[in-house]
C-alpha cells in the first residue's frame, strides 16, 4: 500500500498528537505484569546449571544425587532435548545454545536445569549435580579467533564465501563482500588517502528486566507459556519445533516487556522451562539472575575494523574500502555481513567496497542489539572521514554533505534509494544552533551520521467494533516502547473517532496469525500499516451496513468523521449513522463488525540520522563528560512525537554508554569478569545531559502515512560522534571503543611522548 496520494496536503486529526499511552496507568501504579510478575497454581521454580569453563568437553553429567533431593521434581540435560531439527543446522545451533550438548562453548553455557518446589531446593540441587569436564583451549578475541593457530571451536565450520572452499575447519565462518566500482582507479584519483584500524568491545543491551517465563505443559500435549519477549510468535514456532510440539497447541502470551533492544528476539531458557514442565508435569517458572543475563544471553559483537578512504582536495571521496571482522559468539552468524552492508550506506561513493569476516569465539551467542553491527562500522568510517576532512582542511559537515547519498543513489549494499533523509539531517545539523555554540575549555565537538535499513515483515491486526461503538484492536507484533498508542492513533484517524475510543492489546499466539518479532524498527511501521488497513476494511463494512439500513447502494455511502453519510442531494434527508448507531444495530444488519489485516509490510523506508556531541575531557584522569547532545533524524512521519523523541534519546544514551564505559571484560581464563550492573557501567541519570532532538519528516512512500521505523538508527552515530568529540577535546584520535578513562589517559600520555 503506497503513501496516501494526498499526504502532502493531508491534515491529520490525531496522528502526530501527544496522547496518553493506554498502558500508562498500569505502569505507574505497579499493576502492569512483566515476565516474572505472574504465577500458576502448583508452579515449580527452575534454575540452570552453567559451565564455568569457556570451552570444554562434557565427559559426564551425574544427576543421581540431585534427583534424590527432597523437593526436586525434574532435572534435564541435553539428553532430554533430542535433536528433532532434521538437518536444520541453524535450528540445532539454537538448541545447542539453550543447552550444551557434547561441549560447552562459553562461560555460562547451560549444562543442566532443575525444577524444584522452591528456589532454595533448586539451588541445593544444582550443587549436587556433578559435571566432568575436559577443558579445552579457548579463544575470546575476534582477531585471535581468525588466526590459523586458534583453537577451533566447531569441527563443521568451513569458511563460506571464499573460493575454493577450505577443507579444514576453522573459526572463520563466512566472508562476504559489498560495493561497486574500481577501487584501484578510485584511490589513484585521490589527493589524500587515510588508512586506519579500529576496535570496539562487546556490549550488552542492558535491559532492566531479566528474562523470565512461566511454562505449563499438560499430559495431552497442550502447552502455555507466559514470557517476556520481542516476538512471542517466533518463540512459539521455535520452541514447538525444538520440543516436538504442535505449534497450535503451544499458546504463548507476551508479558509486558522490560526492555529488549534485540536481546529478547532469541530464545534462551524457554525450551528448558517447557521441557522441565513436561517432565515434572507441573507449571515451571524460570527467571534469570542479572549475572545470567550478562553471561548467558546475547550481547553484541566485539569488532576489529580497517578503513581506507581516498578523497580529492575538493572533498570528493573517490574510493573507500573497509574490512570488518565481527564475531557471533560461539555460533555462526551474519553480524559482520550486516556491518559490511551498512559501512558506506550514508554516502554516494563511486568506488567502494566492504569485506566482512564472521568469526566464532568462546563467548555467548551474539544477538541483535539495536541496529546490530551498524554502530561499530559507523565508528570506524566516520572517524576516518573526520580525518579526511582535517587532512584536506574542509569542514566535516560540508564534506559529508558533498558526498551524501540522495534519491537515486545506488547504495553500497545494492538497492537504489528512494526519497531519503541523509542530506536533510546533515543540512539541519549544519544549521543547528548547537553547531555554532561556543565550547568550554577542554571540550570538543563531534558530529557523525548513521544509517539503518529498517524492516517490515509479517503482521496481523484485528479490529473489532464493540456493541457500544468503541473499538478494540488486537495486534501480534509486541509493543516494546509505546506502539499501542500509535496503533490506536492510526485506528482513530481512519475511523474518525476520538483516540480514547480505541483500545489496543497485544494478542497471544492462538488469537492471531503469525507475526514477526519486534525488530528492525518494524513495530510501529508495520503494525500501524496493518491497523490502517484493518480500519479501512471495517469502514467498508460499516458503509455496507449503513447502505443496508438506508436501502441505498453502498457506493452512495461515504464515511466522514466517524459517521456514515448518504451522498447526493436527493439523500440529504437521511441523518448520518454514527459508529455507535451502526454498532448497536449490527445484530440486525449482518452481525459483528470487524476489520482484519494480514500483510507483509514491505518497503520499510531506510533511515538516517545525524548527531552532534560536545564532550569535556579531564586530561589528568581521562574522564569524559558529555555536556551537550543533539539528535537529528528522519522519522518519515512521527505518529506520536513524544515516543519518537524517546527513541532518539534512548538510542543516543545507549550509544554514549557504549562509547565511554560499557564493555565485556574477559579474564585470561575466558570467564566474564563484570557480569553485574556495578561493573558493566551503563549510564546513570547524573552521567547525561538533556538530549535535544529534532524530528525531520521526509515521508516514506510505502506507508499510508509516510512512517519510517525510528527505533534503531539513534544508536548508530553516537560511538562516532562521541569519539570525534573526545578527539577534538584531547587532540588525540581514539581508535578503541569504549573510551574508558584508562584508554583515554594512555592515549594522551602516548601522544605526549
Amino acid at each position, binding site marked *: 500500500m503506497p503513501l496516501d496520494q494526498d499526504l502532502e496536503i493531508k491534515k491529520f486529526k490525531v496522528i502526530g498528537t501527544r496522547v496518553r499511552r493506554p498502558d500508562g496507568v498500569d505502569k505507574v501504579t505497579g499493576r502492569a505484569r512483566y515476565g516474572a510478575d505472574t504465577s500458576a497454581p502448583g508452579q515449580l521454580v527452575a534454575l540452570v546449571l552453567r559451565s564455568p569453563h569457556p570451552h570444554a568437553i562434557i565427559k559426564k553429567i551425574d544427576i543421581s544425587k540431585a534427583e534424590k533431593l527432597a523437593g526436586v521434581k525434574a532435572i534435564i540435560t541435553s539428553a532430554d532435548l533430542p535433536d528433532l531439527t532434521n538437518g536444520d543446522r541453524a535450528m540445532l545451533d539454537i538448541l545447542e545454545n539453550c543447552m550444551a550438548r557434547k561441549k560447552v562453548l562459553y562461560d555460562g553455557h547451560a549444562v543442566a536445569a532443575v525444577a524444584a518446589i522452591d528456589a532454595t531446593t533448586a539451588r541445593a540441587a544444582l550443587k549436587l549435580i556433578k559435571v566432568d569436564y575436559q577443558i579445552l583451549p579457548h579463544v575470546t578475541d575476534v582477531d585471535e579467533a581468525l588466526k590459523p593457530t586458534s583453537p577451533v571451536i566447531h569441527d563443521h565450520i568451513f569458511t563460506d564465501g571464499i573460493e575454493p572452499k577450505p577443507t579444514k575447519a576453522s573459526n572463520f565462518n563466512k566472508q562476504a563482500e559489498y560495493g561497486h566500482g574500481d577501487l584501484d582507479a578510485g584511490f589513484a584519483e585521490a589527493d589524500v588517502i587515510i588508512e586506519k584500524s579500529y576496535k570496539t568491545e562487546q556490549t550488552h543491551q542492558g535491559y532492566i528486566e531479566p528474562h523470565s517465563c512461566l511454562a505449563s505443559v499438560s499430559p495431552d500435549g497442550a502447552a502455555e507459556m507466559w514470557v517476556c519477549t520481542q516476538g512471542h510468535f517466533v518463540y512459539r514456532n521455535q520452541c514447538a519445533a525444538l520440543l516436538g510440539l504442535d505449534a497450535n497447541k503451544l499458546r504463548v502470551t507476551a508479558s509486558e516487556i522490560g526492555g529488549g533492544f534485540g536481546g529478547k528476539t532469541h530464545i534462551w531458557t524457554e525450551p528448558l522451562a517447557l521441557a522441565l514442565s513436561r517432565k515434572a508435569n507441573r507449571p515451571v517458572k524460570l527467571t534469570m539472575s542479572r549475572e545470567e543475563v550478562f553471561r548467558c544471553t546475547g550481547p553484541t559483537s566485539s569488532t576489529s575494523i580497517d578503513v581506507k578512504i581516498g578523497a580529492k582536495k575538493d572533498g570528493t571521496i573517490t574510493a573507500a574500502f573497509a574490512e570488518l571482522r565481527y564475531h557471533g559468539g560461539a555460533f555462526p552468524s551474519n553480524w559482520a555481513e550486516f556491518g559490511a552492508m551498512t559501512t558506506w550506506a550514508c554516502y554516494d561513493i563511486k568506488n567502494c567496497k566492504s569485506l566482512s569476516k564472521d568469526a566464532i569465539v568462546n563467548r555467548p551467542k551474539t544477538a541483535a542489539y539495536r541496529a546490530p553491527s551498524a554502530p561499530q562500522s559507523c565508528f570506524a568510517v566516520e572517524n576516518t572521514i573526520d580525518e579526511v576532512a582535517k587532512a584536506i582542511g574542509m569542514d566535516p559537515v560540508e564534506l559529508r554533505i558533498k558526498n551524501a547519498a540522495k534519491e537515486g543513489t545506488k547504495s553500497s549494499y545494492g538497492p537504489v534509494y528512494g526519497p531519503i533523509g541523509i542530506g536533510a539531517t546533515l543540512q539541519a545539523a549544519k544549521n543547528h544552533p548547537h553547531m555554532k555554540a561556543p565550547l568550554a575549555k577542554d571540550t570538543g565537538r563531534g558530529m557523525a551520521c548513521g544509517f539503518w535499513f529498517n524492516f517490515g515483515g509479517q503482521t496481523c491486526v484485528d479490529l473489532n467494533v464493540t456493541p457500544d461503538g468503541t473499538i478494540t484492536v488486537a495486534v501480534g507484533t509486541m509493543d516494546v516502547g509505546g506502539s499501542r498508542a500509535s496503533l490506536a492513533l492510526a485506528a482513530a484517524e481512519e475511523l474518525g473517532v476520538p483516540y480514547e475510543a480505541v483500545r489496543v492489546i497485544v494478542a497471544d499466539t492462538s488469537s492471531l496469525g503469525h507475526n514477526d518479532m519486534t525488530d528492525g524498527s518494524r513495530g510501529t511501521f508495520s503494525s500501524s500499516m496493518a491497523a490502517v488497513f484493518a480500519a479501512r476494511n471495517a469502514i467498508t463494512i460499516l458503509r455496507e451496513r449503513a447502505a443496508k439500513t438506508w436501502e441505498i447502494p453502498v457506493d452512495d455511502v461515504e464515511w466522514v468523521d466517524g459517521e456514515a453519510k448518504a451522498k447526493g442531494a436527493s439523500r440529504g434527508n437521511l441523518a448520518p449513522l454514527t459508529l455507535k448507531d451502526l454498532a448497536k444495530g449490527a445484530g440486525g444488519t449482518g452481525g459483528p463488525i470487524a476489520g482484519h489485516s494480514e500483510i507483509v509490510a514491505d518497503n520499510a523506508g531506510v533511515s538516517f540520522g545525524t548527531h552532534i556531541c560536545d564532550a569535556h575531557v579531564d586530561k589528568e*584522569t581521562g*574522564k569524559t563528560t558529555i555536556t551537550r547532545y543533539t539528535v537529528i533524524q528522519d522519522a518519515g512521519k512521527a505518529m506520536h512525537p513524544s515516543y519518537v523523541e524517546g527513541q532518539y534519546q534512548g538510542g543516543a544514551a545507549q550509544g554514549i554508554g557504549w562509547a565511554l564505559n560499557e564493555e565485556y571484560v574477559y579474564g585470561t581464563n575466558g570467564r566474564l*569478569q563484570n557480569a553485574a550492573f*556495578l561493573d558493566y557501567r551503563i549510564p*546513570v541519570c547524573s552521567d547525561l545531559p538533556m538530549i535535544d532532538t529534532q524530528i525531520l519528516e521526509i515521508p516514506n512512500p510505502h506507508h499510508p502515512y509516510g512512517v519510517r521505523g525510528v527505533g534503531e538508527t539513534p544508536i548508530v552515530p553516537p560511538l562516532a560522534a562521541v569519539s570525534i568529540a573526545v578527539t577534538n577535546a584531547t587532540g588525540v584520535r581514539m581508535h578503541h571503543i569504549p573510551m574508558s*578513562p*584508562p584508554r583515554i589517559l594512555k592515549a594522551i*600520555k602516548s601522544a605526549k611522548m
Partner: protein
Amino acid sequence: MRYETPSTAKEAVSLMAKEKGIAYILAGGTDLLVKMKAGMIEPDLVVDIKRVKGMNEIKKGAGGYSIGAAVPCVAILENAAFVKAWPGVADAANLIGSRQVQGRSTMTGNMCNASPAADSVPALVAAGAKVSIAGPKGNRKLAVEDVAAGVGRNNLKKGEIITSIDLPKKAAKSGDAYLRFTPRTEMDIAVVSVGVNLTLDGKGVITKARVALGAVSTTVLLVKEAAKAIIGTKLDDAAKANLAALCSAACKPIDDKRGTIEFRTDVAGVLARRAAETAYARAGGK
C-alpha cells in the same frame, strides 16, 4: 539460618561468640545480602544490630563525634553539624552507593567488609578516626587503618563487634576532603581514592596532615611520607607536585576490570593534589 535481633551490645557479642557455625553481623546489609544472594556465603547466624540501643545514634561528646555502628550513611548526611565539621567524611558517606544504598549502608559495615576500595575508609583514616570494639574479653579501640587485614578480611576476633566509629575533636583551622575516581558519576566502585585532612597555623602553613589512599593496595594506605611533604608548606605548587609524586610512588595496585596499574598510579597523584587543595581551602587556607 537464624536471624537474631539483640537489644544490647553484650547480647550481640554473646550471640556471635557462642555461634559454632558461620555468623555475620547485619547492619545495613548492603554487602552481606549481596554475598548471600551470590552464594558466596551461607551464614548459620545473622545478628541484626539495628535494634541495639545506641547503635543508631551520632553522638557529639567532649572528645568529638561518635557514629554508632548501625547508623546509615543517609543519617550522617542529614546531620548538618557533622557535615560541617567533617565534610570529607560526609563526602565519603555520600559516595557509598546510591541514595537507596545510603539508606541502609553503614560506615562500619563498609570498613568491616574490608574492600580496598571502601569509600569511607580513606576519609576516616585521614580524619584519624578509631573504632570502639566490644568483645567477649572486653572492650578495645583500634585505629581505622588497622581494621582491615587484607582484601575481604578484618582484624576482629571471634565474637568481637564494632560498636562505634570515634572521630577526634575537630582541630581549629583544619579541613578534610575525600575524592575518588569512578568512570561514572555515581553507582561505581572507586578505581582509586584519596582522603586528606590538614591543620593550618594562623599564617596558612600546614602543621599537621594525614593522607590516605584507597584501591591501590590490599588495604587502604596511610601515606605518611606524602603528608610529611606538605607539612610546613602553604600547599604551593612544589608541595603539591611532591605530594602527587609521593602518593603515586606509594601505590601498589593491580590491573583488574576497574582499572590498570598505570592508571591507578597516575590518578592517585592527581586526586591527592585535588583533595589537598579542597582540604586546604576548607581549613581556611588561601
